């Protein structure tokens, strides 16, 4: 068959790249500025270079760590994120498997109710949840930061779609051996679902690490502050000391970017998939 798709002319290809690079440059300009500033000696803040580092004044990072307990904030964020990632992924894999593989009464109805809860806006639940957390004595603890967000309908949806796409025959052998559904889940289905585990874990991690409103409401002491809260407070207090503030900002961004870069293939596929089904 004759290949119909013609090669693009050179001018057109150049236009394409010029457009894309200008856009990409604007897109990462804040990062360039941020990294450059975080490495500058304090007295050269307003002078060039603005976008490409020529100084490497690492002391800013050390000073930022001394000015505020960023190590503690980061640790809190990591504990909270780990808790949310583990619970969301495991519980959602459970539920996704049940919806995909077990016939039970009202299974479809229940699934649609869960999908419906995705419509509930964050604001509609934040006040009652604050009261619930208080009543349970969880205010200013990790329980408040983790448990209310231990489930995710989105992740359940991802896992359900994945398990539906697995051929049933894979499980048949185990069934003949008399294995129960839960054993089949742990021994066969879960190990096969690595791609969804990665996607779901990454979504959970980014959500948790970047979260602001809920930690702001349910924590109080500096010992419980997450990094995003710490950064916002730090900004209020050290707003004029930009070299320090930018070093702190780099630290708060880094884990998100690293997580994204490690798993970006899965991540982009995961997002594209939800859009097509939406």
């Amino acid at each position, binding site marked *: 068959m004759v290949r119909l798709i013609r090669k693009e002319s050179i001018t057109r290809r150049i236009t394409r790249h010029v457009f894309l690079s200008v856009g990409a440059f604007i897109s990462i300009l804040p990062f360039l500025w941020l990294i450059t500033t975080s490495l500058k000696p304090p007295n050269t803040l307003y002078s060039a270079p603005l976008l490409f580092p020529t100084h490497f004044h690492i002391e800013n990072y050390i000073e930022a760590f001394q000015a505020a307990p960023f190590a503690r904030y980061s640790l809190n964020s990591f504990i909270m994120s780990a808790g949310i990632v583990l619970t969301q992924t495991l*519980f959602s894999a459970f539920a996704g498997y*049940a919806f995909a593989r077990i016939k039970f009464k009202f299974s479809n109805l229940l699934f649609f109710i869960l999908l419906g809860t995705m419509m509930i*806006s964050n604001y*509609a*639940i*934040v006040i009652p949840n604050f009261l619930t957390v208080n009543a349970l004595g969880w205010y200013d603890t990790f329980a408040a930061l983790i*448990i*209310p967000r231990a489930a995710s309908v989105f992740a359940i949806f991802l896992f359900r779609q994945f398990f539906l796409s697995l051929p049933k025959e894979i499980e048949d052998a185990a069934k003949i051996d008399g294995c129960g559904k839960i054993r089949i889940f742990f021994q066969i289905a879960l190990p096969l679902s690595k791609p969804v585990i990665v996607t779901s874990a990454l979504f959970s991690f980014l959500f948790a690490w970047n979260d602001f409103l809920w930690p702001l409401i349910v924590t109080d002491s500096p010992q419980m502050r997450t990094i995003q809260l710490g950064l916002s407070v730090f900004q209020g207090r050290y707003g004029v000391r930009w070299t320090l503030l930018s070093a702190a900002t780099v630290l708060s961004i880094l884990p*998100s970017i690293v997580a994204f870069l490690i798993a970006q293939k899965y991540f982009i596929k995961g*997002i594209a998939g939800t859009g097509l089904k939406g």
Partner: protein
Amino acid sequence: MRNLTSKSGSLTPAFFRKEQTAAFLLLFPSILILGVFNIYPAFYSIVLSFFEWNGFSPDIPFVGIENYKTLFTNGVFYNSLLVTIIYSVVVTFGSLIIGLLVAVALDRDIKGKTLYRILYFLPVVTPTVASGVVWKYLFDPTQGIINTMLSYINIQGPAWLNDSAWALFSVSIVGIWKRIGFCMIIYLAALQGVSANLYEAARIDGATEFNILKSIKIPLLSPATLFLTITGFIDSFRIFDLVYVMTNGGPVDETDVLGLMLYRNGFEYFKLGYASSIAVGIFGILLILSFVQWKFTQGGEAY
């Protein structure tokens, strides 16, 4: 081969009951958490919106629709509503249009495709607070990089966040910047479903690139556009952290979004009933918006 007959497939009542137990156990953690922290609070918010309560007083008077009356006769609410709607419209459509252009430009076997995709996507995964902190500096009227760059080409930039005419727009720029990558990915995925032969056929018939974009790509992409419009509004209506960090609602109340108004009333003034009526109001508006959009596009089935 053991016990194959006694189990006789999977239809015996005992086996069936076992499956039900398994389903129950697997679903229990998620259902419990979603029930307690998602479904129950949604209803509780509605109930709370008919009371006046500060969260600790034992005395919780029922006030009927008083909170709603206050809300709907309140200039602050209408200002916040308007600010939020403007922000949502600008961010949703701004990111959608730029995201579409980027996706169309990227929808080819070009060099550096993965790199471009990553660069455009980085702002999406960047924490909102950090984004706000950085952009606040970039927008600084005298020292910020934006006005510095504008001064190179002899343009005197505005005071951005400090100027009441520009503040909301400035915050919206950050919102757009954070969302372009998401729109790009969704459009790229949708474009990959369109056969390249279709474009080639159009080109042979003498269609220009612009014709192809207008008459083939945009109509074929409308399910993706609908998806991005709805998620855009839902996401932008949620805006809180960005404004909290960048302007805290100011100058005066030019960027005082609904989320900020709710936070202030709920967690600074402890007017939980009144704050709940705001929450219910936001929820209602979002439901109506989604429904109107869905109706307007016949659920995306028109295409």
